[in-house]
């Protein structure tokens, strides 16, 4: 008869969240876009491992259900798998992923230290402030409006 295997893991390892992670912040914000657009444009977050498992990437997409669920990559966030900050925000991913994209596109009002189109963010407060700026940027509004216009057409 097999004896019960002792669990060597300490009791204080539990499946409860202790800190609001960047991806949790992104998912909460994604779920709120539909309220503003009456679900004509929604948002979703997809997480991928990158750079040979050295980084986690969270892609923030605008989704237009009426346009065969077309997904527009608005920006992506990247950080070490076990460390939330500092993180990088890459905000011209649509241009990067589209051969016809306009690589000179800029989000007005972003003030953090830039590395090309990359923003380096050092804290949760800084992260939420940058998200607010990206969401309010003319470029973002233009994309959302374009998707709405095509959805009701």
């Amino acid at each position: 008869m097999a004896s019960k295997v002792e669990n060597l893991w300490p009791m204080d390892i539990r499946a409860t969240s202790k800190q609001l992670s960047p991806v949790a912040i992104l998912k909460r914000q994604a779920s709120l876009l539909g309220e503003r657009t009456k679900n004509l444009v929604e948002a979703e977050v997809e997480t991928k491992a990158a750079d040979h498992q050295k980084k986690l990437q969270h892609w923030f997409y605008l989704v237009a259900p009426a346009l065969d669920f077309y997904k527009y990559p608005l920006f992506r966030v990247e950080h070490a798998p076990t460390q939330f900050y500092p993180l990088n925000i890459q905000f011209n991913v649509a241009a990067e992923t589209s051969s016809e994209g306009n690589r000179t596109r800029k989000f007005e009002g972003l003030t953090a230290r830039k590395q090309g189109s990359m923003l380096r963010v050092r804290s949760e407060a800084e992260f939420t402030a940058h998200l607010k700026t990206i969401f309010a940027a003319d470029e973002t509004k233009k994309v959302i409006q374009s998707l709405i216009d095509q959805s009701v057409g």
Partner: protein
Amino acid sequence: MTNFLFWNIKRNRIEDIVASVASQHEVDVLILAESKISVGVMLTALNSELESEHLFHLTNGGRCKRITIYTRLPRNSIESLEDYSADKYTLRKLKLPRAEVLLAAAHLSSKPRYTETDKDSECRILGTAIREAEEAVGHTRTLLVGDLNANPFEDGVVKADGLHGVMSRAVASRGRRRVASRSYPFFYNPMWGRFGESTEGPAGTYYYPGSTYKEFFWHMTDQVLIRPDLMASFQNEDLKVLTVDGDRSLLTRKGFPDARLASDHLPVLFRLDL
């Protein structure tokens, strides 16, 4: 309680009427057949009066283009089972507050040249897909709704290797039936109880005044079928064939579905206590 509405809207641009019916009956899952209303227009109409936390959204239908499903349930509560779906029907996992349900929504072919044999084949293909999906999800809490383009008494809906729909809860509660060494699960088909003029509501869901020797005139092509495992969550009085949109009648003065106002089919409303 989760409220469902199924309606074949005959390609008519009746988003205001659909939204009005959905609002009046607090519909949670709206299933449309023959909808040519653009998704944006439909969502705008559905959500115009709703609070932000209860908005309808479109569910991803995958390969089934004949059915459109909008829901106010949380975004992750409905999942398309693409491996078991096809052009004419869609199978979805539906996470309701108290249980997961397998939802099959169908709009089977209404081609004029389709014979009884063809319609029988369509029901058999759908029945097989449902049984395979049940095997995959591991339960038989299944709900089938749609325009089957066949009446509850026609072969494909009744036969064991078709949809196996029966008119009696007592019979359906047996669960399964063996025919020629094979076991087939029952569906309970409450639409049997809605035929004719002695029952609540109109004589059917669809009226077709044909000119052949055999005509039924009223048909019950729009149906809800329920597996025995879901019967406890379904009360017959919670099934209604609607004839009004608020103050407006969906019927002509003669009492037939008003195809010019809304559709030649009437909407079917039902609820599950889940």
